[in-house]
């Protein structure tokens, strides 16, 4: 079996044309997913069952089903409802990109809210009691103590989720989106060279993963200054 380096050299630039879409999927759904996650987290820790319970069901459903199935349901399933076609969201849901972003957002939101909750649970009770004893309200305790400490605690797990979100964006290629994976599949269909193309695609993802890891490493060190005895 031969490995055609020329083919890789020719197709890499083509695949890289999909970077824009891959990053759009990653950044938009990463951002919206984080907002959704914070809302779900607040519902989970509100101490009110009528907020906590729906959030729990939501998280259970979205963590319990494959993201590919979620993408299919949104892309193929939703347009069957007239109400969806008549709604203001139709311009978004008509586009495959809109559907992919929606599915990725809903999915990552469920995971990230649990990651954040882990961070919140990791905040020492004594620190919060000290806040209360100083007269701080529950809200002030949350904003000035729980949130910053939990953020730092949740960061390593969160960076993992961003990396898996990057890889999940590849699933968008199944609904006609020309992200890096989508382009690679087209090239493979034309050239019949799956080996070269998919391996170089894999390497590209690995390089991005490396970049994300480095970026979070920097953020972790910055936010975690207080955890080091030196300096």
């Amino acid at each position, binding site marked *: 079996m031969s490995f055609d380096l020329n083919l890789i050299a020719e197709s890499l630039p083509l695949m890289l044309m999909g970077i824009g879409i891959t990053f759009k999927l990653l950044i938009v759904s990463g951002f919206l997913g984080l907002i959704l996650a914070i809302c779900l987290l607040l519902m989970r820790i509100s101490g009110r069952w009528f907020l906590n319970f729906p959030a729990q069901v939501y998280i259970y459903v979205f963590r319990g089903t494959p993201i590919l199935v979620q993408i299919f349901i949104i892309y193929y399933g939703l347009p069957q409802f007239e109400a969806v076609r008549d709604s203001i969201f139709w311009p978004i849901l008509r586009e495959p990109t809109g559907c992919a972003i929606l599915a990725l957002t809903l999915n990552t939101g469920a995971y990230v809210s649990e990651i954040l909750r882990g961070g919140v649970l990791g905040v020492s009770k004594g620190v919060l009691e*000290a806040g209360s004893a100083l007269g701080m309200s529950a809200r002030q305790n949350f904003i*000035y103590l729980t949130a910053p400490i939990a953020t*730092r605690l949740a960061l390593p797990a969160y960076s993992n989720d961003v990396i898996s979100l990057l890889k999940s964006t590849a699933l968008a290629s199944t609904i006609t989106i020309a992200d890096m994976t989508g382009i690679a599949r087209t090239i493979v269909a034309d050239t019949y060279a799956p080996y070269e193309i998919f391996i170089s695609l894999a390497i590209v993802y690995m390089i991005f993963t490396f970049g994300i890891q480095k970026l979070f490493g920097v953020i972790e060190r910055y936010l975690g200054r207080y955890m080091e005895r030196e300096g």
Partner: protein
Amino acid sequence: MSTADAQPLIQMQGVNKFFGKFQALKNINLEVRKGERIVVCGPSGSGKSTMIRCINRLEEHNDGHIVIGGKELTDQIEDINAVRREVGMVFQSFNLFPHMTIVKNLMLAQQLVRKISKTKARETAMHYLERVKIPEQANKYPIALSGGQQQRVAIARALCMKPEIMLFDEPTSALDPEMINEVLEVMVDLAKEGMTMICVTHEMGFARSVADRVIFMDKGEIVEEAPPTEFFENPRSERTKNFLSQILSH
């Protein structure tokens, strides 16, 4: 005592506290006048922490009345906050805010609770850091300080709120022996200045030299309450005698 301060600063009457079915406090009656220094001791699990945590509502009592500076502790959040503004607390495990520098630890509640300006809050913070003799640590994070230094910061943080009353829950029992004295010194200074204090501690030397009264608790009850000389020389109950023989034997 003079009759001028007839109204005690802290009044607990018939206080009961349950954790589920377990009764942690049984009919606690305690009065502390302004400027009094009380030491509370007793075996582990006797309810010492629970009692002082009821005074600033970190625990909610089930029966009886707790009146602090004329305000009764009820479910009203305003009453709780009013009481907490007057009562400072120091914990066994320091509980500094780990993500803030020392000076920020001292400024936060001043700004949020007392609505004091940043500049003024920093001034007050530095003033109290000097009083506990560690102004040079102001810009470090808590993790960089020794246990004794952290506990002094915790005391300074409580003092920044200008409390009427200070509660100490075993402030030296998490410390290495060589650091205990630096914390006790700060507490003795406070006592000399006339701060009203309730200290849960087994530092009997501190109790002898500083306390106006020593309270012995066992199984959720106040068993004995006496001035230190009387408490140590002539304990009345068997339980106190047993406890003292254990604690003074080492």
